[in-house]
């Protein structure tokens, strides 16, 4: 994908610069909107206010009310009208304000977004993106800290990705918008403020590929979204005690790209999967399943999961206990190595 053209008016520097993940997504959206007038942004409070996390900041001002829509307050309506707009030839990018509010749109996603292409034998394409800030650790009230991605990874017909750092965030949102398949784009909200340098001239890494973000030899950690940082930190800590952990950022949750995981496990013999979501019937379960089948003779211990517990998301004063952290990840590595 060509690097987006930035004009002065948008006031975004062309040279590499250190940006937060939130700003990176904002820049990615802006680039996509500049490139293609059919790209629309829609959702609650995305216009004048620029979204509760300011991810769409300034876009309405620059692109107008017909490209950046403050919609009525109803998620089925947001996704359902986006379906109609996509059929009409637009490329809508919907924001769901928090992951806990995606459920009113579940029916439209499952019955229309995921199935229209298949239903019409490919005659209709649904190039729409649903952006969802997700995950915990932000001290919020109920419904603002969940990790519902497994529901969508079980749903044929859509694709699901999650970014874990600003560079990926910048490119992946643009790639998701370019995709002719509907994409649910999970943004790890507690990492919105992490910073990195972004080279807008670089060649982006492909969207539907996972990536080894730290090579290692002792054991493999597979994770995505907010826990990539946690796992990298864990690997750094483990290095002090002589463990050399490989960390894989899955990036694409549906379809999963597990070849790098298989390859890694064949070398290390040990795999820990980390995710904030409740572990039962989750993406982590799927990875364990696939790995036990593909790497049956390489595994020196069963695949272990480090996940949120199988409870509703708890009150925030105990969320640090609920969320997988560095210690729990390393504990699992130790258990795997000691198996």
């Amino acid at each position, binding site marked *: 994908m060509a690097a987006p053209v930035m004009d002065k008016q948008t006031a975004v520097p062309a040279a590499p610069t250190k940006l937060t993940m939130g700003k990176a997504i904002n820049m990615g959206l802006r680039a996509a909107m500049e490139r293609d007038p059919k790209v629309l942004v829609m959702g609650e409070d995305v216009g004048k206010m620029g979204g509760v996390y300011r991810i769409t900041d300034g876009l309405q001002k620059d692109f107008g009310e017909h490209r950046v829509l403050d919609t009525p307050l109803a998620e089925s309506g947001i996704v359902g009208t986006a379906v109609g707009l996509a059929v009409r030839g637009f490329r809508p990018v919907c924001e769901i304000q928090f992951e806990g509010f995606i459920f009113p749109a579940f029916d439209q996603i499952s019955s229309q977004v995921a199935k229209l292409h298949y239903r019409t034998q490919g005659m209709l394409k649904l190039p729409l993106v649903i952006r969802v800030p997700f995950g915990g650790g932000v001290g919020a009230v109920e419904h603002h800290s969940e990790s519902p991605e497994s529901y969508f990874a079980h749903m044929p017909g859509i*694709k699901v990705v999650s970014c874990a750092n600003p560079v990926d965030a910048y490119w992946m949102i643009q790639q998701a918008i370019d995709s002719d*398949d509907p994409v649910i784009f999970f943004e790890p909200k507690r990492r919105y403020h992490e910073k990195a340098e972004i080279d807008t001239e670089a060649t982006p890494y492909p969207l539907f590929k996972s990536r080894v973000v730290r090579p290692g030899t002792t054991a493999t950690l597979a994770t995505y979204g907010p826990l990539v940082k946690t796992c990298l930190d864990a690997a750094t800590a483990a290095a002090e005690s002589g463990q050399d952990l490989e960390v894989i950022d899955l990036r694409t949750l549906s379809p999963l790209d597990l070849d790098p995981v298989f390859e890694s496990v064949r070398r290390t013999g040990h795999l820990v999967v980390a995710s904030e979501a409740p572990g039962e019937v989750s993406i982590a379960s799927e990875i364990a399943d696939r790995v036990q089948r593909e790497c049956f003779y390489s595994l020196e211990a069963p695949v272990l999961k480090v996940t949120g517990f199988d409870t509703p998301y708890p009150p925030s004063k105990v969320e640090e206990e609920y969320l997988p952290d560095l210690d729990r990840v390393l504990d699992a590595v130790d258990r795997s190595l000691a198996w």
Partner: protein
Amino acid sequence: MSSPEQWTHPEPGGGPAATAAKPTPEQVIAGLRATNEGGAELVELLTPEGERVANPEFDKYVDDIGAEQLRGLYRDMVLVRRADREGNALQRQGQLGIWVPLLGQEAAQIGAGRALKPQDMAFPSYREHGVAWCRGIKPEQILATFRGTQHSEWDPVEHRFHPYTIVIGNQVVNAAGYAMGQRFDGKVGHEPDAEATMVFFGDGATSQGDVHEGFVWAAVYDAPVVFYCQNNQWAISEPTERQSRLPLYQRARGYGFPGIRVDGNDVLACLAVSRWALEECRTGNGPVLIEAFTYRMDAHTTSDDPTRYRLSDELEAWKLKDPIERVRVHLVRNGMAEPEFFEEVQVEADQLASELRAYCFNMPDPPAERIFSKVYAGGNPLLDKQRDEYMDYLAGFEGGAH
């Protein structure tokens, strides 16, 4: 007759509201299904007896409908009814998994369908075979869905007719979105290429959240969409009073756009009101709600047995309002058609039916690969692998490996 206003919007303190459990005579008259009368506000141009009644507001929308055009509408209705009956028969003979009959709703659908311009877009529910016909979709193309060879067969872009939507209400928000797009594309106004969208749904559907959200969005974005509710009095076994206290066209009152009730068995009135509504939308005065007051003369689907929940009297009463018969009578009485015309249409209908039948018998089953194809526009390597493995597995049978 007392006005429906009296009970539908009682002023605070002005006495008790009528309740759904004990409808007042006014409620009944105003059009809940305990009657087959459409109420005082019903727009009707052709009575059940085939008499043309003048309507100062809507006559102008059908002043181009002379004898020839009326014969055309008659022909449309006869043909779609014939195709519908053939679909039903094909199901009975095991050729289709299910059939969803339109019997009785021909006028509601042909009136609306013929009001659409080529550039307009339509979003059907699952019973709109008559609208499909008007969009240039052959009855054959509908069979796949009900035979189970494909979920949907026609090209929605070419015909500007969306695939059937089975999940009640979903298409209403989709249509509102599409219509927003028409407006964003600058297609609302007084140019000849101005566009509108029409979306079809049933009386039962009005309860769904999605229908409400479609109304909200359309109102807020001035979307050029006509909400076309075919009130056929039943949602499977549930009569309209299980969904609403009020005649359904009055739902629009809560949103600030016009709602109107038309005699859904009067093709001329349906055409006129639809043309008016579409024109309102194309020129920027959308949305509009139309309630076509009609009747599902057959079962809900071929899987349904309506004797379990409704009396045959009701059906008999509605038969007197048959949408086709009244046009026939009108054409005959006014010397607008010769007997040969009716014979020709009948021959054509039988021809259509036998072609449909032959087509159905010759429909090939899809190959197993269909399962895996067109799930994604951009592909999915995991699914490709599943397909390859499964195809290998199937090939094993052919080779006699199992």
